[in-house]
């Protein structure tokens, strides 16, 4: 980017500065610590200059928004066209109370829905299963069957909102219910937009909501992708997630590397199914975390976009530019929140939101300040949403595209993260690919080691965490926390009994039998899942069909 003559001069001058003013200053008073690092442990230099980006080629490495390699953004106008989608993850109790929260959020200016399901649904159990005891309606909404889904989207037109569903191993079942409800509402599937997470690999790596062994669960993932590509063209068929990898303790670069490694595995699996890369890749979406170190996060997003574009073009020979775009949702870092002095979390979330805006994300969930204590209260949720609105509409971060481009530090960090990602991907390839790296526990161990390093840094006070190891204070226990009604479980169990008693048994049984038959073949299961949910089969019943055929996954590796 710079002429050699200019660089030479900068190098000479920098040395002069180091020996002169800097040297004198350091002699008088040394810096606060010998090494400065990001929260990921990456060393940070005192000063970045053109010397750190001397190999940068603007046209090759940065280019223009909406064009390869998409370093500067995936759309030509970015937030000058429209802001990111403000999408708050929400759900608790039964379908009715969650439906009320959704309609409140939409009235407050939220632009998309994001369904939090309770753990039994995520793990493929009905609310009255023994393992569901105590969990019903706790961390999300209890959805057992199509009637619940109908109540959940009552008075919400499915052609007007887009809905994201955090649903993985049983993703097909919940999407089937959603599509069935859309049909009831008279909405053409071509107009239905949204996302299912459908990312089973990261469940095995770190999030724990797995059901089936990797090979089989991947088959269901690909079935969904293939089905939507033909029948629900606007649906984002997967949200390949680094969020939870970061929550589990990874560094920024590991988050990007392991997520893209998962992305490569899904792409490969779809191609092996016989799909053309450009037929499905434009609907692959991603999901990342945003921590408080704004500059490192921005570099991470930029590096990820550039690397993925190259992977798609070079490795998978994609031709459609949309296949090369790393489009992603962001959630602010849940683990960065502290239970101590919880109002401080508002500031953390604001910085993380700022990082997302400067990094060019497509949608965002901001955490509520009380989430290290409980599920968010309405007041906390409102502040979280307002935080996004302030960053979008007051901060100026949205006025120009990729404003940090050209910063010597950010460009250098972008290169560094991209190089680290590349190193991991190469290592994983050498291990026989992502599935095999997961089976060997490699990815899990890398994450756990980073988590351990970070914890040690906090405990030795090498890294400051406000309210945890510095600026601590006595405070009265917080009050007014959200309590989920424990009786939802009993209500749901009684209601399920009724539901099962009142359905057309012959129709129900025929649908499940058919699904069982198809699931043992290579045929796409999705049409039969839709038939089964319409015939009133429950989430647990459908998941059991697959449990019986595919077996259940048990994690293999430990620290």
């Amino acid at each position: 980017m710079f002429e050699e003559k200019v660089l030479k001069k900068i190098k000479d001058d920098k040395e002069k500065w180091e020996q002169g003013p800097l040297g004198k200053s350091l002699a008088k008073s040394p810096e606060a610590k010998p090494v400065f690092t990001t929260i990921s442990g990456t060393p940070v230099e005192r000063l970045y200059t053109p010397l750190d980006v001397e190999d940068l080629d603007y046209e090759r490495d940065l280019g223009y928004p909406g064009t390869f390699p998409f370093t500067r953004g995936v759309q030509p106008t970015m937030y000058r066209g429209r802001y990111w989608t403000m999408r708050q993850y929400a759900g608790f109790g039964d379908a009715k109370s969650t439906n009320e929260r959704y309609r409140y959020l939409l009235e407050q200016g939220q632009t998309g829905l994001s369904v939090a399901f309770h753990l039994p649904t995520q793990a493929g159990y009905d609310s009255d299963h023994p393992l569901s005891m105590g969990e019903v309606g706790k961390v999300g909404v209890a959805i057992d069957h199509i009637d619940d889904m109908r109540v959940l989207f009552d008075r919400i037109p499915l052609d007007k909102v887009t809905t994201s569903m955090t649903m993985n191993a049983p993703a097909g079942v919940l999407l089937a219910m959603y599509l069935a409800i859309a049909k009831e509402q008279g909405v053409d599937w071509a107009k239905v937009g949204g996302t299912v997470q459908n990312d089973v690999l990261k469940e095995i790596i770190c999030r724990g909501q797995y059901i089936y062994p990797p090979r089989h669960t991947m088959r269901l993932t690909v079935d969904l992708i293939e089905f939507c590509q033909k029948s629900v063209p606007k649906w984002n068929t997967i949200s390949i997630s680094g969020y939870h990898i970061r929550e589990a303790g990874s560094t920024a670069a590991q988050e990007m590397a392991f997520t893209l490694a998962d992305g490569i595995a899904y792409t490969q699996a779809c191609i092996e199914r016989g799909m053309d890369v450009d037929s499905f890749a434009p609907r692959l979406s991603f999901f990342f975390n945003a921590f408080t170190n704004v500059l490192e996060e921005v570099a991470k997003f930029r590096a990820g976009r550039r690397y993925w574009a190259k992977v798609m073009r070079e490795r998978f020979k994609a031709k459609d530019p949309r296949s090369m775009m790393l489009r992603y949702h962001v959630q602010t870092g849940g683990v960065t929140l502290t239970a101590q002095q919880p109002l401080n979390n508002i500031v953390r979330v604001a910085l993380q939101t700022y990082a997302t805006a400067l990094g060019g994300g497509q949608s965002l969930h901001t955490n509520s300040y009380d989430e290290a204590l409980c599920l968010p209260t309405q007041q906390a949720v409102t502040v979280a949403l307002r935080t996004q609105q302030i960053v979008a509409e007051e901060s100026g971060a949205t006025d120009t595209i990729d404003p940090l481009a050209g910063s010597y530090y950010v460009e250098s960090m972008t290169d560094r993260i991209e190089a680290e990602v590349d190193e991991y991907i190469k290592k994983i390839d050498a291990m026989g690919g992502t599935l095999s790296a997961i089976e060997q526990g490699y990815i899990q161990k890398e994450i756990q080691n980073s988590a351990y390093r970070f914890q040690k840094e906090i405990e030795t006070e090498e890294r400051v965490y406000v309210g945890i190891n510095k600026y601590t204070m006595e405070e009265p226990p917080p009050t007014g926390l959200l309590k989920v009604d424990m009786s939802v479980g009993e209500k749901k169990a009684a209601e399920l009994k009724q539901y099962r008693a009142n359905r057309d048994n012959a129709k129900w049984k025929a649908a499940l039998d058919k699904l069982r038959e198809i699931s043992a073949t290579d045929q796409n299961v999705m049409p039969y899942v839709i038939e089964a949910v319409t015939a009133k089969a429950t989430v647990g019943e459908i998941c059991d069909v697959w449990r019986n055929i595919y077996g259940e996954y048990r994690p293999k590796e430990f620290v």
Partner: protein
Amino acid sequence: MAQKIKMIMAKPGLDGHDRGAKLLARVCAEAGMEVVYTGLRQTPEMIVAAAEQEDADVVGLSSLSGVHNYFFPKVVELMKQKGLEDVLLVGGGIIPEEDYDFLKKSGMNAIFGPGTPTGAIVDFIKENVRKR
């Protein structure tokens, strides 16, 4: 040979967030304990069976999905039924302070909320664990 502290580290319920549980397991092992990790999706019955078979001195329960008030007392109750009253029971995770009293009254020996240094947990176990 000296007695070693044997610990069960368990995650009751369906919550899959095991960063804290695994981290603590590792820290306790480094402090010289023998730590049995049970993995996810444990029912109170499974946890107590493990405690009995392993002759555990400590049982650690980690919960981040808000189900502590349901699961922890259940574990305490079953431990009592099996005659395992002298086993130290500690809990951690996303547990609001206002629940501490209830959990302690129901028989938990200690609750460690978010941000507790792992060293403090190790010390508590070493100071309060039974002799076999």
